[in-house]
């Protein structure tokens, strides 16, 4: 078997309209500046795509990009990134997934693929080390994701498939690979619009080894140690999955209830990770390779099912005032089968429920009632009845039917299950996240609400924290490595581990630049350098790595501003900005405006939120 040291930098570019493909090499400069994964995907699309194209048109492109760590055996590195112009938001969107497709593609000898054009008839792509073949997908077109994947998986190690939702251009349709999904931003609809039912990669053709094996192993060992030490990565997430967040959120008052009108609920424990683990006797079912192992499956009503993640439980559970884990996992399965994002589905359903209550639309949905939800999810996937409009997402639906004030979305993307009225910094990051309301652009709620390392209601330095975390997470997504490793990397180095939380809280609140810069994130750049074979210079390389993260974030922002994004879009749903909650002793709403101004200044954006030329120049982004 061919062995590749470091990276082979080969990209497969497929033009469906012309039925042609070509192989391009990634330049050294691009690799160093954009690392891989998310950064590289965005950069390649930035070079190739014009602004203003129709996300569901021929000219839109979708890129699937692997990171350099994929296949090297680094912990939790079995993830890959996809980037495209999202039909849900109309701006760039990236998504990350831990399914088997990533490894299959990488071991077929490709670092990524870029698909453009549109096939005339439904097809699926078969990729091996030689190139790509378009095969007719008539037999699997219309099938749900599970069935389609079962067919495609026979041809290779890993596959990507879309479900009926993607075929019917549901704007929040996702792409499935194994039990994991490229969830957000409607990637499935983009594939659907290109008439692609799935992509299968043969895999197992090449072997990846890090260029500097010794250094890699040393860092890797430290990484393993940290992950196994950390109480979240080796404790709650490992045993209860991400749904361990339910109880934490409930206690911290950031649990969305009834379309974000409440912040905690007495019955939330019924659907918490702990309860589900006990009730359904869960076992692991995770990305590969992984040592955190947050994914779980269990016997639910006599059937083996995937345990819903926290976001699914949040948006299909307590946000709809439903506290029955069985029905939630049933809907989780429907969404998975249809290929729909559970967060956006849940958010849209919550909007529909409130709109029904307020007489804007006519449905049989009601908060707290499980009636009609399964049917509505299917109607959305097949775009029947009112599902036709709901399939466009809560933003488009609220533009048509009204109720924009309670459509919980940012830039068109529905809010995940963390209420920013209990963690202001996270609110700022929702507003500024590039792809819309994204909990993965900073995950500040962990510091603010879960660990008590920052005052959730303070505004001071939150802009700095957001910027720091955004850069770090963008860099991490370019590696590409699981974001949960951040718990270990941020919290386990001795300096931070030995300092009591309240001191960190005081430092974060008063001297955030100092406190955050003392955080040792050297593990990630060490791994990257060891893999690609560059010399790691302590501190300098780490700074460069963080700058690369900044570059990726600002590039995405710049691409979005070319699509018309500006300050007016960096906002939160009106409800979060104006309404208080009864669960708080003092009613609070997110004071976004003040934080946003400082954030723009810090980022080097102008007052309208557009990156200044100076900033782009400093980061080496070519201005178009």
């Amino acid at each position, binding site marked *: 078997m061919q062995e590749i040291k470091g990276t082979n930098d080969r990209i497969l570019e497929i033009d469906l309209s012309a039925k042609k493909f070509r192989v391009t090499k990634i330049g050294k400069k691009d690799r160093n500046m954009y690392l891989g994964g998310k950064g590289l995907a965005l950069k390649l699309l930035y070079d190739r795509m014009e*602004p*203003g*194209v*129709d996300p569901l*048109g021929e000219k839109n492109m979708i890129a699937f990009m692997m990171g350099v760590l994929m296949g090297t055996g680094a912990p939790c590195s079995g993830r890959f990134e996809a980037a495209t112009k999202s039909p849900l938001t*109309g701006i760039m969107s990236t998504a990350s997934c831990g399914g088997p497709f990533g490894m299959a593609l990488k071991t077929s000898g490709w670092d990524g693929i870029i698909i453009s054009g549109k096939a005339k008839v439904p097809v699926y792509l078969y990729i091996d080390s030689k190139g790509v073949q378009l095969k007719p997908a008539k037999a699997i077109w219309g099938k749900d994701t599970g069935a389609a994947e079962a067919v495609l998986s026979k041809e290779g190690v890993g596959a990507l498939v879309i479900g009926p939702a993607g075929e019917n251009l549901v704007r929040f349709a996702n792409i499935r690979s194994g039990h994991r999904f490229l969830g957000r931003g409607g990637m499935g609809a983009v594939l659907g619009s290109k008439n692609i039912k799935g992509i299968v990669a043969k895999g197992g053709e090449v072997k990846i080894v890090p260029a500097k094996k010794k250094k890699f192993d040393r860092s890797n060992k430290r990484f393993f140690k940290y992950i196994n030490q950390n109480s979240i990565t080796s404790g709650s997430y490992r045993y209860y999955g991400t749904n361990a967040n339910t109880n934490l959120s409930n206690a911290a008052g950031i649990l969305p209830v009834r379309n974000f009108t409440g912040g905690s609920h007495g019955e939330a424990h019924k659907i918490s990770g702990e309860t589900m683990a006990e009730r359904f006797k869960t076992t692991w079912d995770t990305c590969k390779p992984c040592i955190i192992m947050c994914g779980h499956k269990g016997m639910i009503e006599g059937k083996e099912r995937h345990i819903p993640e926290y976001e699914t439980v949040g948006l299909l559970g307590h946000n709809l005032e439903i506290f029955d884990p069985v029905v939630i996992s049933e809907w989780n399965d429907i969404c998975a089968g249809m290929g729909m994002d559970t967060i956006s589905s849940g958010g849209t359903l919550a909007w529909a429920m409130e709109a029904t209550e*307020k*007489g*804007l639309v*006519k449905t049989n949905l009601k908060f707290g009632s499980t009636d009609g939800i399964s049917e509505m999810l299917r109607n959305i996937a097949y775009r029947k009845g009112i599902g036709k409009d709901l399939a466009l997402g809560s933003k488009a639906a*609220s*533009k*048509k*039917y*009204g*109720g*924009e*004030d*309670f459509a919980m979305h940012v830039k068109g993307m529905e809010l995940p299950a963390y209420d920013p009225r209990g963690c202001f910094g996270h609110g700022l990051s929702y507003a500024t996240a590039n792809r819309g309301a994204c909990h993965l652009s900073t995950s500040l709620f962990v510091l603010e609400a879960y660990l008590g390392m920052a005052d959730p209601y303070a505004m001071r330095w939150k802009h700095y924290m957001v910027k720091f975390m955004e850069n770090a997470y963008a860099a991490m997504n370019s590696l590409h490595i699981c974001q949960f490793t951040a718990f270990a990397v941020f919290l386990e180095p001795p300096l931070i581990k030995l300092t009591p939380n309240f001191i960190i809280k005081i430092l974060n609140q008063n001297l955030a630049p100092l406190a955050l810069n003392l955080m040792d994130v050297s593990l990630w750049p060490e791994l990257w350098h060891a893999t690609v074979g560059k010399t790691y210079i302590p501190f300098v390389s780490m700074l460069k790595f963080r700058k690369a993260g900044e570059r990726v974030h600002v590039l995405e922002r710049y691409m979005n*501003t*070319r*699509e*018309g994004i*500006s300050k*007016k*879009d960096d906002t939160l749903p*009106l409800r979060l900005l*104006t309404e208080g909650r009864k669960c708080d002793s003092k009613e609070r709403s997110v004071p976004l405006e003040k934080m946003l101004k400082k954030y723009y200044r810090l980022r080097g954006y102008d007052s309208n939120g557009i990156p200044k030329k100076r900033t782009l120049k400093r980061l080496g982004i070519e201005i178009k």
Partner: protein
Amino acid sequence: MLIPDYYQFLIHPKIISGKCSLENIPSELNGYDAQKPLVITGKNIMERGLVKKFIKAFYDSTVTLGGIFDEVRDYAGISLARDAAFLYKERGCDSIIALGNGTVVDLAKAVNVLVSEKIDNLSAYHEGASISRQLKPLIIVPACRSNGMEATNVMTIDNRRITADFLYPDVIVIDPRMTPGCCPECVAESGVIALTHAFAALTDEAHNPMTAAVAHPALSYLSEYLPKGVTRPKNKDASIALANASVLAASAYSNTRPGMADLLAEELSIITGISVGKYMRILLPSLIADMQKKKIKISDELFLSLVGMEAYAATPVQERPQKGLDAAMKLINSLKGLLPKSLEQLKIQKYKLAEVARVAAERSAERFTDADCRTVLEQAWEGSAV
């Protein structure tokens, strides 16, 4: 002068304009046998300190303000209307005052429907039922940015329009303490909207002597005061004139059918969330250029109202309509670089234009075709007419 074959005209609100007109509100309310109005206003108006001045106008009267509901922002929705209606009922109010423009007025109208009809949502009206009863007294005090629909019989709630003659406000109070604009852009936008509405009222086939009579002073005010108001937004004379123009244009507009520029701007605004005025500034020149190209016949009233009697008399009859279009173009271009000049500059994604054109053509009841709309939009995208 030709007598139209058929026409209808209704203009309801009583207009009180000028110095100390706010102090007339208590006596106007007394006329409606109302003692306790609910004031609906916007956050920005509260922040600018206009509400304090407003409250002072009620000193030494018997009118108790039932509450100042200042939650309105850029969106008028049923949730907010329900909150305000709840406040109205709790406080036992008997009338409504809307202090502000655009969404504030829309919300006030919606609250009025909710409390007068004793219902808690507007679904019946969304489905086509009509408002068939006299509502509670509604007084409007315009302040700052107008969306041109205040004095009309239309309310836009939750992005959906409800039209009924009972939705006309009862009194409009234009007071120089309230009208000065907050910034040149805001004055320019309000002016452009009024211009577009008056233009639509005059160029529509359904225009009649009454709409012309009402649109005429509106256009005269605009041609004289818009350039001045834009350079000096705080100028009281200009702001009063523009506020009057806005109300008059709206009155004329509510008696005709919406023009192409209005429909397109509204659709674009709903999709992108950018204010209608900005779009009208771009679309109106494109529409005028298109009309000039097609040599569409319009009334010469436009020319008369924009340039005055002298220039009108000095121009041959057959040239007047075309010159009218020229004058309108000149007026709108006097705004120079204050507002964006093309849809491209506003960074509107081009693929969205087709959908906008389709919906606008649908709403126009076949007065213009999809292709017509698209021509205007394409031109507006490039901004070639500006």
